[in-house]
């Protein structure tokens, strides 16, 4: 697909840039370390984005219906919505000794 071809092209570009950087550092022309860091950061971001594009997504209609289902099946046991009788945080009734 178009996306797959784009990602392949980008991975090729990354490989080419890595090879160029190696060649450059062995020659006299050296990039300043700041520029190197910047390029490394950009490459990292590019690799991350490529991976994120590839992510196997599900349809929103499917995933949110499951979130709703989860809530509905757990609401009864939710103590802050359906309070339980023995709430351990409830102050105990004091008793006076006469």
């Amino acid at each position: 697909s178009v996306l797959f071809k784009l990602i392949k092209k980008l991975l090729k570009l990354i490989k080419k840039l890595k090879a160029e950087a190696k060649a450059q550092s062995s020659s006299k022309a050296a990039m300043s370390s700041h520029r190197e860091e910047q390029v490394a950061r950009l490459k990292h971001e590019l690799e991350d984005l490529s991976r994120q594009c590839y992510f196997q997504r599900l349809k929103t209609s499917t995933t949110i219906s499951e979130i709703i289902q989860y809530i509905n099946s757990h609401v009864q046991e939710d103590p802050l919505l359906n309070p339980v009788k023995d709430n351990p945080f409830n102050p105990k009734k004091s008793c006076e000794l006469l």
Partner: protein
Amino acid sequence: MEEQDLTGEIETLKKKLAEEQGKLSDADLILSCQKIEPITQVNIKVRKVLKGHQGKVLCMSWSQDKRHLVSTSHDGKLLVWDAFTTNKEHAISMATTWVMACAYSPSGQFVACGGLDNKCSIYPLLEEEPVTKKRLVGTHTSYLACCQFNTSDHQVLTGSGDSTCVLWDVESGQMIQSFHGHAGDVQALDLSPSESGRVFVSAGCDRAANVWDMRSGQCVQLFDSHESDVNSVRFYPSGDAFVTGSDDASCRLFDLRTDREVAVYKKESVLFGCNAVDFSLSGRLLFAGYSDYVLNVWDVLKAKRVAMLYGHENRVSCLRVVPDGTAVAGFKDSAA
């Protein structure tokens, strides 16, 4: 001209990513929940007040025993409380002030914490003098913002102002994995309840929430729809989604499996930044603490506020629902 090439390709890919995400966006959470009964009443009262810190409370963590909790403060103290009786069981003085991160270990025997000292240290609670048996777990190049034990007492995950997260081995103090990708200070993190030990989410001052694969160290998903710093992040109980709280005065729900933001919790009258978020046991209620002294309770499925809890004299800096869902503790200064 490498940088220009790269920047151009990055822009192209970002557009492509947005397109791909849009293709599967075939439903809206709030619209899908229109027929669901709204929550009419939330009966939550302040039951206990834990007083003891002299400075602002910066972080807190519940023990798995659902009864004890640890809190750390700007005054440099770490306190361990019995929340049923409100007694303080331990008081440890830190070598640094501004202890911004703390975590109770799963066994309940240790607490990990750190802050402006850039370090994450661990204290054994069963010792007579825990402060003498302190052990260094790891060091960052900037402040420690958050930490959590990773499924056992042996590993701790940290997030730092140096924009990285790191997974440490407690015994050896070695770095097991580091996570690079945030473009600003990391402010919060949370481990997945369903993908234990494999997935976590972090959020920070770059307005983004990143989802990480713990084995490879790679960022597998990135959500950057917030308009300002993200201060807090918490997984939804099933692990399929997470919520964030930000300085842009909104909370947002991100659905991991569809790779999108699916709800925004905000109101015109809610103007102040949100500092802390957590879910009730079922995930139906969202508790959010803000800088204007209020704890707003949101109905997750309707994106409507159902209650406002006061009881604090200052901004709510952290809050956590106890593991069995019976209570929520919110800290600023002294009250819980």
